């Protein structure tokens, strides 16, 4: 039973990673930019989630506000920070992204305080028995459901809509896409909006799970998100999902059975190194 519990806990953690890393994958797939500042948008989602819930009493409203607000901030990040740098080497955009992330952390600290914020009355705390003697809070169940829904909607958008076709065409070859009349700027805006909205969703849910949002909340996702998209095969949505869930489960077991030797991050990166030694393109990466 313990192994089942550890697996379930790992899958919950993996669902959180998936929500965070999907946005990163979308941005990388489209622009080939490692979007470290994505983690700052994740934190912003957490702050909006707590502040709006405490002000209105509605977590649903807070989620909507976080999705729209952070989605728009994500578009602004693209327009103001990345767009002017797209014709420069990718390293330049990466440095800008790291700078943005560090600046955002300090802004959160100055605006919201160093101690972090908590929900006055955290919603979705009731425990549900998902398996015999295995209880998960409604919030944990909700994050798994949200991850499944978000990935499903993304898959549908990508495969079955004109927007998806435009999206994939822009990923494959922006110049040819433009010659077919696709407004690639619009595609990029949409891409950043959706990716940032996913980060906001993850941020608000993680804030709820921990009942805490702090300026440094994005620190771990900032680098682990990158590890996940590398592990999955850069730019692969399916690979990101598999890598997120695999990493969640590996960390879950590793924390218990290797925790006295290695901390959780070290276990995750050891796994990453092992996979890359065996499959240099990641779990689902395609050959160049």
């Amino acid at each position: 039973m313990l192994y089942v519990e550890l697996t379930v806990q790992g899958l919950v953690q993996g669902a959180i990673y998936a929500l965070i890393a999907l946005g990163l994958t979308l941005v990388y797939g489209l622009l080939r930019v490692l979007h470290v500042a994505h983690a700052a948008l994740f934190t912003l989602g957490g702050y909006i989630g707590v502040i709006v819930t405490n002000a209105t009493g509605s977590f649903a409203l807070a989620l909507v506000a976080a999705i729209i607000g952070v989605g728009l901030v994500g578009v602004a990040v693209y327009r103001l920070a990345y767009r002017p740098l797209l014709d420069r080497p990718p390293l330049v955009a990466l440095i800008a992204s790291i700078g943005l992330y560090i600046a955002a952390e300090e802004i959160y600290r100055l605006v919201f305080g160093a101690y972090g914020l908590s929900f006055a009355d955290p919603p979705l705390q009731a425990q549900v028995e998902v398996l015999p003697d295995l209880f998960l809070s409604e919030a944990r169940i909700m994050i798994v459901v949200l991850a499944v829904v978000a990935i499903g909607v993304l898959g549908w958008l990508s495969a079955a809509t004109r927007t998806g076709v435009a999206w994939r065409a822009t990923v494959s070859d922006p110049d040819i896409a433009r010659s077919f009349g696709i407004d690639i700027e619009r595609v990029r805006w949409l891409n950043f909006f959706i990716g940032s909205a996913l980060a906001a969703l993850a941020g608000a849910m993680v804030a709820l799970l921990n009942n805490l949002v702090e300026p440094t909340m994005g620190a771990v996702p900032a680098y682990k998100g990158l590890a996940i998209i590398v592990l999955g095969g850069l730019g692969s949505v399916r690979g990101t999902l598999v890598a997120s869930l695999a990493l969640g489960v590996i960390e879950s077991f590793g924390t218990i059975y290797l925790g006295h030797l290695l901390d959780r991050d070290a276990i995750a990166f050891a796994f990453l190194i092992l996979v890359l030694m065996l499959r240099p393109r990641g779990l689902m990466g395609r050959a160049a």
Partner: protein
Amino acid sequence: MITQDEVVAGISGSYSGSTRAAATIFQENQTPYISAYAVHPEITRAGPYVFRTSFMGEVQGRAGANLIGDLMDLGRVVMITLNNDFGQSLAAGFRDKAGDFGIEIVNEYAYSIKDREFGAIVSKVKADEPEAIYASGYFFTAGPLVRQLRGAGVTAPIIGQEGYDSEKFIEIAGPDAEGVIITTSLDRDSESPITRAFLEGFEEKAGYRADMVGASTHTAVLVLAEALKEAGPGDKAALRDAIANTTVEASTGTISFNDLGEVKKDVQVQIVRGGEWHRYAVIKDDELLAPPSE
């Protein structure tokens, strides 16, 4: 500060890393330096000009073993240890004395200061069925940890330390904070006039309630102020001697130092009741709580 601004003494209001680095500089310049709440054992070993008004981690760990094994009379304990100098030194002190107080350490798990998700550890602790949980951490790790343990149905008493000692811990853990017990330096139910004046004055000025960090820093400032009254600012060697020989009533109890500059004082045990910290016990045992003297 020391050579140009002619600072006569310093107080560290920070954790161990920066406090250790600064301690060496203060010692080299023979300028008294008091660590308010950094726990690393090497800090006072920088030299005779360096003092500490808070407990070393080992001392508080021993007090934790005394609390669980003797005062609470519980035997099977799971340790959840924060993997930094604070958590490791607490764990070392706890392990050192666990056997003496009849404690069997069933299992020990480690976590990083960055962790806020403890699902795997919670599942394993639940399977271990301990009588008590000795979990080190700060309010921002302990709050989520306690919530997740209680949420999973783990009802064993949770014993923490001064890292929990904040109103923010109660805010994060919410109703799950009820019954959590910690070893710390500040007694909210103290009748000592100086502690009462500190608690009331702090809340009036800050707008929120004081915690261990505030009280420890207040204590360090008071120790230095008393020494300055006695020795004056002109002679740093005399000021050092005045600090070394001080016995002063402060917001964290009666403070005096051993030969290494480590504080000798009682350990306060606090419990969360009705959403507030209250006195659970006071551990007075000079032998158990003796810090290293060299």
